[in-house]
């Protein structure tokens, strides 16, 4: 009992912190709410960290909740990624929060509620609890997207996201009803047991149900036939929210997707493979077109996040074909994408905080001369996102493509490599704009504060992830991350 309480303590901390911030929000207290929420997240992070590497798999309070919530090594690793992601997102936007008047107490309470929903998502061992967690996270994010209600773009993005998101939620429920009808349960273990007990059946209804559930999850990660909202919502949302959605929320979604695919639908791999391949091809190509046609950096990053989701779908497809090692490459890719994209968005937020720009390609003309250090770091992030060798992004793509080739998906891997070459065009366009234009502006002083130090840290991490293995033998390497992911995945069986 006490042990189980200890296991869910991080989640309880987040909820209590959110409630506290909510009740404090009307008060004009002289307290830094950003730092308060970072403190709460850090406490939860520390508590979770103490369990890392310990092999466990416990259904928390099984007598009360049934088997709907699980704490295992897999969820521990994802909790760490989510908490760390949210913490970095809040810290890196420190300047941005100070430069805008509309970030009051409610904003941070909503962020904490969203983080709670994401953590619960990685713990969900039943489709209904997965849906409730997904809704907790989504509802908070709807409100966060439209938080700056003075900005018509923010309002419009919010409305689009709410309408399409609630439709996706209804589809999830429909799929859930079909799965319940087919198997008599929505608990992941029971569904797997049902499939194992009836190997001869076609499982038509189960597959249709699973299809609807997957449509919702792919909608939320922005895979291509369901991507209509991505660019507008990422553009309209305030920058910290865009960061949260692009990195942390995606991590949580892949937690539940991996749990479903590895534990549950593994037996139906033959069926999933074809739709996933089509989805991969569409996402990679459609995302590239989206990213190529944008003139605003935020929109370009939004388009490219669709492409990155496509790379992870390649690995997911390898999983359905039986190559379970590919799941580690998804975890590693999520981390590498997180590091590079948070860095890139961090620079945008730094600029938006200090110079109130629209952040189009035009604004970056001569950036290499006016902000030499930031421009260098931006180049590192762009190289890492493009998958240039000696950055962490390269290793991430490398693991994904080798996983796909091992599973016999040579054509998909080739398409992925081709799309990576295309992506060089739009990432290098920014680098070229920064360095190849002269500017009358003088060099700006590079000051150290929370935001810039964190951006620097992200840049160092991107490089360390790519080449650090050989240079610093005593520090943990990307291999350690892979080892950690492998350990986490084994707890799923």
């Amino acid at each position: 009992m006490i042990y189980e309480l200890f296991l869910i303590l991080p989640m309880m901390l987040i909820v209590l912190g959110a409630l506290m911030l909510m009740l404090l929000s009307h008060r004009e207290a002289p307290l830094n709410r950003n730092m308060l929420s970072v403190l709460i997240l850090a406490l939860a992070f520390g508590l979770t960290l103490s369990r890392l590497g310990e092999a466990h798999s416990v259904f928390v309070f099984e007598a009360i909740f049934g088997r709907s919530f699980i704490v295992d090594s897999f969820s521990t690793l994802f909790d760490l990624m989510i908490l760390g992601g949210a913490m970095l997102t809040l810290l890196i936007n420190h300047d941005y929060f100070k430069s805008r008047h509309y970030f009051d107490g409610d904003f941070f309470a909503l962020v904490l509620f969203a983080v709670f929903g994401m953590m619960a998502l990685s713990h969900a061992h039943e489709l209904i609890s997965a849906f409730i967690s997904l809704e907790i996270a989504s509802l908070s994010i709807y409100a966060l997207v439209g938080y700056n209600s003075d900005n018509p773009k923010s309002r419009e993005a919010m409305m689009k996201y709410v309408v399409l998101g609630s439709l996706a939620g209804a589809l999830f429920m429909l799929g859930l009803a079909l799965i319940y009808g087919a198997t008599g349960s929505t608990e992941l273990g029971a569904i797997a047991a049902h499939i194992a007990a009836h190997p001869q059946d076609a499982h038509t209804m189960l597959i249709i149900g699973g299809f609807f559930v997957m449509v919702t999850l792919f909608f939320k990660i922005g895979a291509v036939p369901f991507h209509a909202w991505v660019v507008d919502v990422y553009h309209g949302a305030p920058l910290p929210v865009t960061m949260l959605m692009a990195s942390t929320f995606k991590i949580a979604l892949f937690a539940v997707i991996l749990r479903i695919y590895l534990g549950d639908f593994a037996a139906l791999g033959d069926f999933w493979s074809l739709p996933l391949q089509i989805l991969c091809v569409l996402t990679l190509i459609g995302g590239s077109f989206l990213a190529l046609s944008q003139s605003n950096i935020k929109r370009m990053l939004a388009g490219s996040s669709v492409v990155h989701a496509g790379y992870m779908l390649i690995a997911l497809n390898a999983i359905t074909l039986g190559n379970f090692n590919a799941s580690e490459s998804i975890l590693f890719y999520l981390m590498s994408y997180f590091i590079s994209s948070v860095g890139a968005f961090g620079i945008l937020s730094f600029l938006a905080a200090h110079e109130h720009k629209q952040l189009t390609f035009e604004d970056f003309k001569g950036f290499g001369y006016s902000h030499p250090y930031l421009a260098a770091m931006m180049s590192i992030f762009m190289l890492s996102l493009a998958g240039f060798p000696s950055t962490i992004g390269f290793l991430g793509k490398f693991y994904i493509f080798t996983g796909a080739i091992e599973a016999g998906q040579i054509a998909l891997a080739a398409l992925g490599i081709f799309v990576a070459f295309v992506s060089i065009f739009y990432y290098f366009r920014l680098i070229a704009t920064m360095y190849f234009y002269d500017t009358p502006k003088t060099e700006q002083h590079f000051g150290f504060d929370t935001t810039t130090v964190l951006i620097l840290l992200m840049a160092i991490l991107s490089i360390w992830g790519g080449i650090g293995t050989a240079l610093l033998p005593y520090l943990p390497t990307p291999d350690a991350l892979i080892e950690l992911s492998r350990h986490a995945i084994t707890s799923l069986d």
Partner: protein
Amino acid sequence: MDHMNVANPYFGVFVLFVLTFGAFFATTVIARLASRAMAAKDTEKLKLTVYECGPEVTKQPNRISPQFYLFALLFLLFDVEIVFMFPWAIDFKLLGWFGFVEMMLFILLLAVGFIYAWKKGALEWHNIK
């Protein structure tokens, strides 16, 4: 096999499911195409205006204030939670103290939300214009 007995009626449902979807989409598409094809295409500018003569269209003076929506919304939120209390009330004796504490925690969470709404001034009458 007993499972097939369960699965068979469902397959019929699935077919119906596909058919109804098909029928609905077909109806909407056909209705749209038909109306487009059969509509009188007289595009004289005056005919397309709302009134060919008479006063300009004005907004209704007796519009309902959006404030009512806000109250309705709060009512909806706190009202719906009753669905969790009915099952608890029916099995109150069986659930005993454990159920009681659990429900009190739930109500406490609702109360926090209520206090928040109160402090934010959502219960006061604002004239939204």
